[in-house]
């Protein structure tokens, strides 16, 4: 095995501890099961952020990683690291891994593949409230209790936080830290929980998060794509998502582009299984 195994094991153990300690610790170390010539696909991933990924490999990015590894006839290994500021710097760019399964297609810190899905921010409401909100200009938003996620980093915030403050909708907006309490499972999901519990009337969340957890709350939730799709002067709510590799690793990027092309229907099925709201479904090729 490679010499970075002890380090890897240590990190995994720590992350598992953070995530509650009871989880099965997935490790790339230990006896090699495959022949030494087998290619290794090293993926950096958040151990505690469904529906994207977790250390039990239950997220759609875990499933897509398995699909890619299978296609490339590679053995899949993970380095777990909370996907926060410094994630790319400490993982991909430290050569801890070669691949991030999901990044925005225009993410400058990595070389990105062709997009494999396009999603949107959505309004999340309880069905029994019959609110039917589809636009940031809906007058109901001036009186309802609204939840948004706050980043508090890079001098900016999530698009809905900006769209609301720009419309002077502030005092009835509650901010939920996107980082949350990392001791709890999938911290960003607290926003969706708050809608289901009735702590807030409307949540505005990134589609994949909302689509997945809306299916798992004890009450029926509606999710509706926001409009406009791009607020003026330039505030997009729609993002293309790609895989990311280290800058300069064009050969892997090219391979991955080919995998995405070959496996498009399987990728679509995985995304569908996880309830990811899509704006690009049915398109034949890249949506850029």
């Amino acid at each position: 095995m490679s010499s970075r195994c002890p380090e890897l094991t240590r990190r995994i153990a720590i992350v598992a501890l953070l995530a509650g300690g009871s989880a099965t610790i997935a490790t790339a170390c230990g006896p090699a099961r495959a022949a030494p010539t087998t290619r290794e696909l090293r993926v950096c991933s958040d151990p505690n952020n469904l529906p994207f990924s977790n250390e039990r490999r239950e997220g759609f990015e875990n499933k897509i990683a398995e699909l890619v590894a299978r296609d490339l006839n590679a053995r899949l290994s993970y380095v777990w690291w909370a996907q926060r500021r410094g994630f790319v710097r400490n993982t991909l760019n430290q050569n801890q891994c070669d691949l991030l399964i999901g990044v925005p297609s225009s993410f400058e810190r990595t070389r990105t593949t062709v997009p494999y899905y396009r999603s949107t921010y959505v309004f999340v409401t309880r069905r029994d409230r019959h609110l039917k909100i589809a636009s940031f200009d809906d007058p109901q938003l001036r009186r309802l209790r609204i939840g948004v996620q706050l980043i508090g980093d890079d001098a900016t915030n999530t698009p809905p936080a900006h769209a609301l403050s720009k419309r002077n909708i502030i005092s009835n907006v509650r901010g939920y830290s996107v980082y949350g309490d990392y001791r709890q499972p999938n911290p960003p999901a607290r926003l969706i929980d708050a809608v289901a519990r009735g702590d807030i009337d409307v949540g505005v969340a990134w589609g994949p998060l909302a689509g997945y957890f809306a299916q798992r709350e004890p009450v029926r939730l509606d999710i509706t794509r926001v409009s406009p799709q791009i607020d003026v002067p330039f505030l997009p709510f729609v993002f293309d998502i790609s895989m990311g590799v280290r800058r300069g690793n064009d050969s892997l990027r090219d391979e991955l582009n080919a995998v995405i092309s070959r496996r498009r229907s399987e990728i679509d099925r995985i995304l569908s299984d996880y309830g990811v709201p899509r704006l690009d479904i049915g398109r034949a090729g890249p949506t850029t």
Partner: protein
Amino acid sequence: MARDNAFCRSSFKVTLAVFLTLPALAAGCSREKPADEVAQTPGKPTVTPMAGRSNGGAIAAAEAEDGQWTRPAKNYASTRFSGLNQITADNVRNLRLAWTFETGILRGQEAAPLVVNNTMYVVTPFPNYLYALDLTKPGAPMKWVYKPGPIAAAQGVACCDVVNRGASYADGKIVYNTLDNHTVAVDAASGQEVWKTKVGEINLGESLTMAPLIVKNKVIIGNSGGEFGIRGWVTALDLGSGKILWRAYHTGPDSAVRIGPRFKPFYAEDRRPDLGVKTWPGETWKIGGAGAWGWISYDPQLNLIYYGSANPGPWNPDQRPGDNKWSATIFARDPDNGDAVWAYQMSPHDLHDYDGVNENILLDIPINGQTRKVLIHPDRNGYLYTIDRTNGEVLSADPYGYVNTSTGVDLKTGRIKYADEKYPKMGEVVRNSCPAAPGAKDWQPSAFSPMTGLIYIPHQNLCMDVESVEANYIAGTPFVGMNVKMFPGPGGNRGQFDAWDPVAHKLVWSVKENFPVWSGALATAGNVAFYGTMEGWFKAVDAGTGQELWKFKTGSGIIGQPVTYRGPDGKQYVAVMSGVGGWSGAIVAGGIDPRDSSAALGFVATMTDLPAATNKGGTLYVFSLP
């Protein structure tokens, strides 16, 4: 105050702040002092100021010089001035390397080494090792190393590199903070852990990077993590047991901020109840940032600690209309119970990431014929504040760098006057805002010499463009990030080392440096001031004129705090850590791609030439005369 003979030895009872205004004690001590030591006699400089200059009359509340370095800023007044005068402006050119020590940790080295009882203590960045070096033996061999074992994930949540700003000593213990929110006390003799207390929660984005101050057997600390939606606080722990004694938050209701009957801020608008709630929309105060990751000073006569809180969160100001009390605020508190006595907010509703955590130097200076007890605070917002430390009145606020994000401070109301055209707006480009987000000066602490009456200010000269263009991604959540790009301010130099006269309110001299001066300053009774550059030069300048007298090229950029001490051989030594990093040096320490111009919140854009000038490091350098 205990008048204890032990004080006159280089004793352990350094927490006893003894003022030389007590003549009997000063006299009692002086006979045991080496002849080369200069007592800091208030108002009576024992070295003649430079010809053509006169000491303006500023003095610091001096403590007896014991030749050691037991607190982060040397003394409670935070002057970083040593009365040792063996190394002088005349002989410093002969300074030579005495010995070195390699920590093996190649991240930003911001800590001041401590020197206590002929032992030097060095705290490293994460994983926060504490080394003890035996100064009585040739080459200062390691006595022990203490490894607190902070959890590795702490690196993922720590803002701005994984630095540590140092330790404090008292009662036989070295006390410092670990990145993962533990305060630890280590037996100074044996290296055994005495206590270790968890004071914060890394899973909520909190971390600890600051150096504690020990006051009356209480360890005072504050948290970091404003970028991650924390709620800021200061906390006191019992020095003997590590038990948490009190905590005061910087947002929330008065009870949580420890605002009560004794709270008498100078400005009327600050006297209304529960401003820590009412100056925020909804419940945003709960994630309002405003940690306390900088410096703490202490006035034993007034029995007050002084420190500043950090900027409010979220950074985007539109989401938090209001003054956002008590972010970017200097607090005066009673260390016995944490009660606030006064507060003054430098940057209400902060627009530009101007934390208020910079150092507060406690001086007594003549103003209009009267001696006033003041604190001097060079803030990130570009103003050097002189504040009456008994009541929080702003006596003056002078720009000490280039400022265009505001047009001054109204001394009647205490309010800063923001420039409307520099208000950051989502989706719009706001160009040439000065100072940039790290401010006219960041954490790097100034020094004050009672001999020259000057404050030595290491700082930066940076402006920034802010625009929103780049896609970013946190915890599976995409958004368009503000693209902050920093560049040199007027003159083209990114850093400078200035001497400022706090009585005359004027710059006396300025040494321009290519890179931001991210190291602390040191002033000595030998009329020498020391600082380091990010290229790795360690420099000595004439404290009166700023003339460069000596320099030595260390192995890595210097962002640490130089200290000086008297060795067991009676010689004066000067020590500094070399190892670039921190926010400004993240491009080297963090291995950031120089093409990623908005990395490190835009600081990388103006530091792309740093990797060609220096490399990572983690080495202690110690100098002496031959």
